[in-house]
């Protein structure tokens, strides 16, 4: 019985599907990671059109104020277990737009991310490496960061 349950846990970690949602420019490199040269499907990653079937929500770069409620709503629509990956400098602290009057500087304080991928934008190799870290995290049985806390729980969206 234990073995079977282990198998399903393993399957969860090896099959990560992304919600098709882009908030900023890093989605361009995400597209490149899907492309022929990097082809993240080799590792089993796949984009899926609706958040309902997704395991991973990518914060692709900047999060503007207007899109934040949509981002949180998308996250809420996903089924457990779900993980958040923050791409690029913007999703950490606003990056180049740190001084901008419309970009959220602390998106991951609102929706905590499990893995940060550095770069502006991160290279496709880095994105795949970051996703591999999510796999490792799931295999180690660490619960997702957003389920542990974050401002999003107190917010209305």
């Amino acid at each position, binding site marked *: 019985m234990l073995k079977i349950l282990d198998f399903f846990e393993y399957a969860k970690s*090896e*099959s990560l599907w992304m919600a098709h949602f882009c908030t900023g420019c890093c989605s361009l490199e995400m597209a490149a990671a899907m492309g022929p040269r990097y082809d993240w*499907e080799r590792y*089993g990653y796949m984009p899926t059109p609706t958040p309902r079937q997704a395991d991973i929500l990518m914060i692709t770069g900047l999060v503007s104020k207007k899109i934040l409620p949509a981002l949180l709503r998308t996250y809420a629509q996903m*089924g*457990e277990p779900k993980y958040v990956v923050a791409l690029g400098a913007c999703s950490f602290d606003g990056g180049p737009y740190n001084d901008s009057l419309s970009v959220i500087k602390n998106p991951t304080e609102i929706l905590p991310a499990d893995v940060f991928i550095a770069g502006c934008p991160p290279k496709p190799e880095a994105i795949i490496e970051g996703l591999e870290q999510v796999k490792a995290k799931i295999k180690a049985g660490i619960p997702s960061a957003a389920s542990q806390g974050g401002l999003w729980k107190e917010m209305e969206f």
Partner: protein
Amino acid sequence: MIDAFISGFLFPGVLYALVWTVGLFWFFRKFMAPLHKRVGPYYNGPHGSYQTLFDLSKLWTKESITPTGVNPYLFSTMPLIAVIVAMLPNVVIPWTNNGPLLNTPYGLLILVVLVGIEPFLLFLIGFGSDNKYSFLGAIRVLTQAISFETAFFLSALAPALLFSTLNLSKIVESVSFVSFLILLPSLILYFISLLGLLEQPPFNIPDAEQEVVYGFMTEYSGTGYFMLQLAKFVEFMAVFAGAGTLFMGAYRGIFFDSYLWFFIKMVSIAVIMITIRAATPRITMEQMLHFSWRYLVPLSLLNLAWVMFAKAMIFTGV
């Protein structure tokens, strides 16, 4: 007892359907990848063959969300019914030379009725989702099903006419090279209406993700979505097997008769289907209706006339 168990759960039953789903899903992705100049699943198992097993297992055990505002019974039972209905044709298809599980003189009728009922279940699934995109997708399913089923039924009727039987085993036994040639137009028509019925490009209008976000499947997650995927792939199997049985002699082959031949025939239909998928954009609803009623249905009727003519002139005595 043992036999019933084997056939219900192993060979043409549940396990067979599951293995087929996992395998075909993998084959779709792996075969599609080189057409995209990619590699496809690679690292999980030999040539990534465990990938779809992991994917489907994950979907099975993932949280299933029932949105507020839907009828929970309709929402959660419809996928299960869809799977069962998709699996039922398995009993009448002669998989091996032992004949079908249920040897009935009305095999063909059962096959087309069960295949034809599936879109209406998908309609109910979309209708019950309480989502605008799902509802639009559901209406599209219905429109498309009505347009393509006529041609599907008519082209499936051709072998019955030619061999004067609805018994699938008898049809398989009667298929010869000459009959294959006579039925070739019917096979092509069957294949085209199969694309429409299975919502494959260029007729993937109901689950067009760029237009209606997966249509009827939008709201399904976890187990429900797994069921729908299962139903889809099993439906593929039933329709492919229908083509194999009606036109290509199912398990019959060169040198020996075996399930292997049947498998090869089904996979070759899948290959053609995926190749079309990789090279054809989706058409619109009006174009689909136009195509179906202006060309496909009249052609199927003409084809019936041709089959009757061929039967009278060439095929008499067989």
